[in-house]
């Protein structure tokens, strides 16, 4: 072993990262080279001094009450996690959650919001609660239904795990996949991605609630083969919220969640909400897309945020989604089609990008 080679790997030797054989080579070299022995000792001393400096530094020590404050804060955050149950008592609960909301008017449209609670219980089954509210947030009607009993509900539930996975991997863990700027994604994949962040930014504040959220990032990314338009917001409490838009083909004759205009001509947004141990997901539909709002906020806050962004997002998706051709190429060079004409299947969740290597 030459001295130059030794100097290159000396630090890894000190970090015990070398292979056994390489360690033996280093030791043999040190036996016969006093210069490298001195260099190793000097580097070892620098590390020792650095570790000691950090351990002894008064300015780097936390205050005496910091541990108590950490305990109080961590337990308070843990207490915010509402226990999950098989049944949700609506009425008072949802009214409390939604009454402070300001329902947005958009242009000549008058929006009424339908809030629906959806819980999937372990082992299958569950129910969805739908509510109709007027523009003042007054409850008009409510009903229960089984979300897995509708093709649209089943399809949304199939896609929801991908949305939560993307939120975790991309927003929280900073490991996005196949990231493309929204404008570029709008040209390459789906025109609705263009201007998506602005559509979310519009009317995002909920009046009367402490919850407000600012758009902090927008891009398009892929999770488990599904491409999303991904707009990230930061709540007033510093929590990250993901608004994820993905292609979601549907039979125009489908009812329930797919209906966007009530019989009285009012525009409706039908939202459903679900949660697992880590995240809350609120989802709603547009003609050719599904929108998922994912966060670890309290469920009523996450749902409220979803309903706040729904009107402008639906407007954006309805306007640009129709421009989407029946077929387009993915960035990977794959070619796939979707159709909004009636088929034998009520709903298809939308195609998943095929990996060019077949993974």
């Amino acid at each position, binding site marked *: 072993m030459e001295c130059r080679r030794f100097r290159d790997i000396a630090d890894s030797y000190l970090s015990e990262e070398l292979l056994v054989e390489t360690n033996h080579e280093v030791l043999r070299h040190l036996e016969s080279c006093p210069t490298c022995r001195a260099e190793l000792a000097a580097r070892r001393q620098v590390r020792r001094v650095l570790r000691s400096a950090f351990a002894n530094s008064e300015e780097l020590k936390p205050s005496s009450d910091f541990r108590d404050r950490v305990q109080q804060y961590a337990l308070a955050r843990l207490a915010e996690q509402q*226990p999950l149950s098989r049944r949700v008592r609506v009425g008072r609960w949802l009214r409390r959650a939604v009454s402070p909301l300001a329902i947005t008017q958009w242009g000549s449209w008058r929006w009424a919001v339908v809030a629906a609670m959806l819980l999937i219980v372990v082992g299958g089954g569950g129910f969805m609660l739908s509510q109709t509210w007027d523009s003042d947030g007054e409850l008009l009607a409510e009903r229960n239904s089984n979300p897995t009993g509708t093709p649209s509900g089943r399809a949304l539930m199939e896609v929801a795990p991908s949305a939560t996975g993307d939120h975790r991997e991309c927003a929280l863990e900073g490991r996005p996949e196949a990231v493309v700027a929204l404008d570029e994604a709008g040209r390459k994949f789906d025109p609705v991605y263009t201007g998506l962040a602005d559509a979310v930014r519009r009317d995002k504040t909920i009046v009367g609630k402490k919850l407000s959220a600012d758009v902090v990032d927008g891009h398009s990314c892929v999770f488990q083969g599904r491409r999303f338009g991904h707009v990230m917001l930061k709540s007033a409490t510093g929590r990250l919220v993901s608004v994820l838009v993905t292609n979601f083909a549907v039979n125009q004759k489908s009812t329930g969640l797919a209906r966007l205009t009530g019989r009285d001509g009012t525009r409706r947004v039908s939202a459903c909400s679900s949660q697992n141990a880590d995240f809350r997901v609120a989802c709603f539909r547009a003609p050719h897309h599904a929108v998922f709002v994912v966060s670890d906020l309290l469920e009523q806050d996450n749902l409220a945020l979803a309903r706040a962004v729904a009107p402008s997002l639906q407007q954006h998706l309805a306007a640009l989604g129709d421009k989407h051709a029946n077929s387009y190429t993915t960035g990977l060079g794959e070619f796939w089609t979707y159709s909004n004409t009636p088929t034998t299947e009520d709903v298809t969740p939308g195609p998943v990008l095929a990996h060019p290597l077949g993974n």
Partner: protein
Amino acid sequence: MRDTVRTAEPDAQWADFEQVALPHLDSLFRLALWLERDRHQAEDLVQETFAQALQSFHRFQRGTNCRAWLVSILQHLRSNRRRSLARQPPLSDVDVGDLEEQLAETLAYEPPTPQGLSEDEVMLAVKKLAPAFQEAILLADVEQFSYKEIAEILGIPLGTVMSRLHRARKLLRTELTAYANAHGIGRGTARAVSS
């Protein structure tokens, strides 16, 4: 997605967490404060780290490196905050490319690592490095995480960790040598070694 029925037992949860995770509080705070350079931000970051760790403690595998797990959470929070504030992607090695040129000039001849430097002097030299390099040296040489653990914490490939550390350590030695030369300190020079 499936609901799970959980029984709320915060006291039991905290007792377990306190025993396993809380001993690393000071270590995490030191790291956060050094990297953030602001005590309030460091406190917020560490509080949030431990809050998230407590909520996710059911996912932590006992027997594995808890400190590495906590630092991993802290690093993710830092990345998110950095991205939300500056709307920039996480630091890549390309961002410190201008230092490559300085490094290239020193590669032709590597002087011996100076000895006898004090804690303050070594800390001062570390502070002169680019943030990505400071981070790498702190994790590897102070906190003594393995290269593999650092790769998981930072969410970067193992090869990137190794090359970043290699450059960081070389640059640190360059800083130490420059300081030692300016102050007449060096190998063989009689000087009391501090701490």
